[in-house]
């Protein structure tokens, strides 16, 4: 299967720290992939490199076979690469309706139109409402985003990224900070996304990861450690060691200090 998103020898350094270390990675269309790893493994840095928030120190990123390494965020987004953020990045003064309307008008290349009132395109408004209803935001669509409960804001964070129907969606800890009872809903929404959309989930909650993912990559200290089908990765003794070993190392460090 051809890769919809891939990287080649991707490296990102912050001073002396190598946050992403020579990662060569490939994501087929329609993937259900999870990216896991201990704290500080460089998962978010990797997502920032993929989405263009950070430029790589060296190496390349390919989207649909095209080298997009020096493309800015907006250009990658326009070409089908969407993402959510670990910390909500929303427009607090907007309503969910306006937010999704905006995302859709950009996706339809109508965002620069300055001589018609926003909300006059029935196609966009209808589409926005249907997305909001799918993501359980229908009843709060005219409320101010900043005053919504956290769980709803988290859903909106996903809705913005899903609205343009991307080819690849990077979900950076979508359930972070969401109370236990509402995590299930987020997982259901992610599971219901179109089959052809390639999904990358970054998550700490292993129950979520193993329920969702067909394939898993494990990042350790910026490098790809193990990669493969979820069932194999789950059994891999090295992976167990990394997760167990981490706490052991911490104990050792704690003891030495």
């Amino acid at each position, binding site marked *: 299967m051809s890769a919809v998103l891939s990287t080649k020898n991707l490296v990102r350094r912050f001073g002396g720290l190598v946050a992403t270390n020579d990662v060569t990675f490939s994501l087929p269309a329609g993937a259900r992939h999870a990216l896991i790893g201990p704290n500080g493994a460089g998962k978010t840095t990797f997502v920032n490199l993929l989405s263009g928030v950070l430029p790589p120190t060296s190496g390349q990123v390919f989207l649909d076979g095209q080298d997009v390494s020096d493309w800015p965020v907006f250009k990658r*987004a326009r070409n089908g690469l969407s993402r959510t953020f670990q910390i909500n990045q929303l*427009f607090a003064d907007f309503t969910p309706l306006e937010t999704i309307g*905006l995302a859709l008008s950009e996706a339809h290349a109508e965002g620069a139109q300055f001589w018609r009132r926003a909300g006059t395109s029935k196609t966009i408004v209808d589409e926005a409402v249907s997305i909001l209803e799918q993501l359980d935001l229908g009843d709060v669509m005219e409320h101010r985003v900043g005053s919504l409960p956290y769980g709803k804001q988290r859903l909106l964070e996903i809705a913005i990224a899903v609205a343009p129907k991307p080819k690849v969606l990077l979900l950076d800890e979508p359930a972070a900070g969401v109370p236990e009872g509402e995590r299930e809903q987020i997982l259901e929404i992610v599971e219901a996304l179109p089959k052809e959309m390639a999904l990358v989930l970054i998550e700490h909650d292993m129950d979520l990861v193993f329920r969702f993912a067909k394939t898993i990559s494990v990042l350790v200290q910026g490098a790809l450690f193990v990669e493969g089908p979820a069932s194999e990765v789950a059994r891999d003794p090295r992976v167990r060691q990394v997760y167990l070993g981490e706490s052991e190392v911490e104990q050792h460090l704690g003891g030495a200090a």
Partner: protein
Amino acid sequence: MIDTALHATTGGESRAMAWFAERAKWRWPEFALWIAAFALAFVFPSRSALFNEVAILALFALSLDIVLGYAGIVSLGHGAFFGLGAYVAGLLAKAGGGAGLYSDPTFGLLVAAAVCGFVGYLTSFLVLRGADLTRLMVTLGVALIFAELANRMAWLTGGADGLQGVLPGKILGLVEFNFMHPEYAYLYSLSVLFILFIVARKVINSPFGVSLRAIKGNALRAGAIGINVNRRLNGAYTMGAAYAGVAGALLAQTTAFVSLDVLEFHRSADVMLIVIFGGVGTLYGAIVGAAAFKLLYDLLAAATPQYWQFWLGLILVLLVLFVRGGIMGLVSGLYARMTGKGETP
């Protein structure tokens, strides 16, 4: 907000269409403001010179509100475009000698808008290179360069003596500016302000305008949904520059004079104060702020000729500290209470 009755009877789509329509709707205080503004010319024709200054200042403030309040670009040199517009219109009117196309006031406005828009477009690339502090410095620097150029090019601008012989023709070929009737000049400036306000209001409520608010709200997210942030900001800055140019052109035409004063720093600073005073990113804040600023200035200067700056400063400081969103913040709070459509908690 939409009535609950509407909720129950119609589906999400029509509710959504209605929400968008409701938001952009003209409200009665808006009509009242404009009717009052036009009525002033007939009720107090003798004070029209002052009203004319307010209208011009309001347009200038409106132009900065587009740049600061919507595009989120902090500019301390917006006066550059005001001054450039004034000189363009002044030189045109001088060249025309009171008749013909060059002296036609409408033509003067269009050329001033085009020249300032073009210069604004070019400088927007410089301005957008940096973050806030850099932008402040670049805008300030550009304004200083313009002021010094106007000073040095005395053969063209008249230098420190000012530009003499500015003779604007008849407005739309019909009415002549007349110092015995300052209300003509006021009605002319106010009409231009009104038309450009409607245009700005339409642009702000368009998808382009929504994307500007999005960029100001969260540039990272705006980029992540595919908005070419810098290109949108280039557009907004260009529009703001063109508007400022028209304001400058109005001053040149209605006073038949241009001096180096149009490019002085205090204009950029005053207009920034006015926008903050009136309420950033509200459009009406520019108009109300300009009126309040001029009125206060007049009252205080008459009451305490020596200390008016102290009182003006004090009022500004108190307003900024204790009233969120300037005068418009106060007004919209009151309006929400009166109509029972309380703000979202």
